């Protein structure tokens, strides 16, 4: 990254937790590790900490680059840094790889102390509530009584809401971007197709592919291709690829012909090399299970009665996977509880992926909100 306001060289650290963690599923993790990065300085009052939650395939590498890999830029580098909307001169920004992840935190690829082998399919399903517990314990380690803000897009936005509901006294502001208070049937259906692609891959071996020396690449690749389609919009695909052919004319066979096919195959292949299939399955389940209204007869306003934080809710006009309607449901629940909330629908053509994109209005809104957070 050459931009002058990049956070620059960063490095990941890990933190070990020995207190057993009781999960929503009933399972207990005796101990676990979280890998994380931080940017900026924690102030003496410890009142300027912002936790950034990642989405389905994200991780703790939120901003900056690694010394030994200058091309590996954090996934939200355009948003976070000195002078950027989430300004690291003001805030102490934390990125954590969620429990169950495959980028260093304890997850299916980690060694299970009890067996001496990788967890694989034995790794318990984790939920946003379980993550909220880990965020609180993480904050405890840093002496952070209350996050100035918790911020996330997509699944990250759901994780952020969960913390505001499960530990209302631990966070003052919540930014929920391109998220939803619960997945729709259509959305769960997409996740199921993705899971079926992985689960039915002959290389999956019931999730114990590690001991077979394989990885369900084909399944993971299909899952990612499907997901990718749903993260883009019809318009953005039409603009970027249209019906363009790779070789200029039809070949009358099943090889890659259209540019969009080439693009999707490339994205799928790349992802299948880098991501763990069990983690992918687990993350899609965390999405499906998120439903704070479930314990309140589906009444989201009742679910939000315990929240205390101020909220920023943002959606994108072209996002059909987590549409503006879903964000408006969240806003309604916040209004019903007379919580401070601002909501904007950002004009965009990039679909769900818009939340990762550089956009002047979007970034101005986040900057305005962040500037008004007192520390």
């Amino acid at each position, binding site marked *: 990254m050459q931009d002058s306001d990049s956070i620059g060289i960063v490095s990941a650290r890990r933190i070990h937790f020995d207190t057993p963690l009781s999960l929503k599923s009933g399972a207990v993790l005796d101990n676990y590790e979280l890998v994380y990065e931080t940017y900026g300085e924690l102030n003496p009052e410890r009142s300027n900490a912002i936790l950034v939650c990642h989405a389905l395939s994200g991780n703790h590498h939120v901003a900056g680059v690694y010394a030994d890999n200058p091309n590996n830029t954090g996934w939200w580098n355009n948003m976070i840094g000195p002078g950027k909307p989430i300004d690291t001169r003001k805030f102490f920004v934390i990125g954590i790889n969620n429990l169950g992840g495959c980028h260093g935190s304890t997850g299916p690829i980690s060694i299970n102390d009890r067996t001496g082998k990788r967890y694989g399919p034995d790794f318990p399903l984790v939920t946003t509530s379980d993550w909220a517990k880990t965020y609180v314990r993480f904050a405890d380690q840093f002496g952070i009584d209350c996050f100035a803000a918790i911020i996330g897009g997509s699944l990250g936005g759901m994780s952020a809401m969960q913390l505001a509901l499960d530990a209302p006294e631990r966070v003052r502001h919540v930014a929920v971007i391109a998220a939803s208070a619960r997945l729709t049937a259509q959305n769960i259906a997409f996740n199921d197709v993705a899971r079926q692609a992985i689960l039915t891959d002959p290389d999956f071996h019931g999730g114990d592919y590690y001991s077979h020396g394989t990885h369900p690449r084909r399944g993971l690749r299909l899952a990612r291709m499907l997901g990718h389609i749903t993260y883009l919009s019809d318009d953005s695909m039409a603009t970027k690829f249209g019906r363009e052919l790779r070789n200029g004319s039809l070949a009358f066979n099943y090889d890659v012909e259209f540019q969009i096919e080439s693009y999707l195959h490339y994205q799928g292949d790349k992802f299948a090399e880098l991501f763990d299939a069990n983690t992918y399955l687990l993350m899609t389940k965390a999405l499906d299970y998120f439903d704070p209204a479930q314990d309140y007869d589906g009444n989201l306003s009742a679910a939000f009665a315990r929240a205390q934080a101020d909220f920023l809710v943002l959606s994108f006009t072209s996002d059909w996977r987590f549409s503006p309607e879903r964000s408006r449901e969240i806003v309604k629940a916040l*209004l019903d509880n*007379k919580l401070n909330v601002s909501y*904007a629908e950002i004009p965009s053509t990039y679909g769900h992926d818009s939340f990762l994109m550089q956009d002047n209005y979007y970034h101005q809104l986040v900057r305005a909100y962040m500037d008004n957070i007192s520390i």
Partner: protein
Amino acid sequence: MTTTEISRSVLTLRPDFATIAAWIKPGSSVLDLGCGDGTLLHYLGNKLDVRGYGVEISAHNILACMQKGINVIHSDLESGLSGFENASFDYVILSQTLQAMKNTENIIQEILRVGKEGIVSFPNFGYWKNRLQVAAGHMPVSSNLPYQWYDTPNIHLCTLHDFEQLCQQHQVNILERRVMNHDKKVAFFPNFFGILAFYRFGHAA
């Protein structure tokens, strides 16, 4: 804050906002429809400890509100106030926007569904200079109606009499009326000498 301090700070506010602010009880809750850059809400929050939200559709205004730290909700007033519960605000304000709305009747009803009281302001089409221009054969253009007939957003202009008739038809109970000519109150033939009209209204008893 003392009453004197409040009335002094009101003077620094735009005259039409000052008229509205004078009707708002300290500590109340307010929904400001078409809140613009949030000036009124900012004032009400700082001076009268009012808790409120603005509703806006313009990106420029939404950003301006957020820069002021004002709660603002992106929404199209033409589709009603479905995001807001019944009787959830002490006041719902619609300042100089009524005349530009398509669904005029609906928004009046929505204001009284969501608010215990409504406050509406609009340019009085019955103002004598407007009448004069119409009599001379032209649509009125003035500082309060600065548009040409072909580019005006004001599609539902009305006079004081017209608005009061609408209120009567919809069982809307007018609690207070203030008619202004710039920063002066108009008591004499308000439908003729008034430029801006302000109404505070509630449900019919």
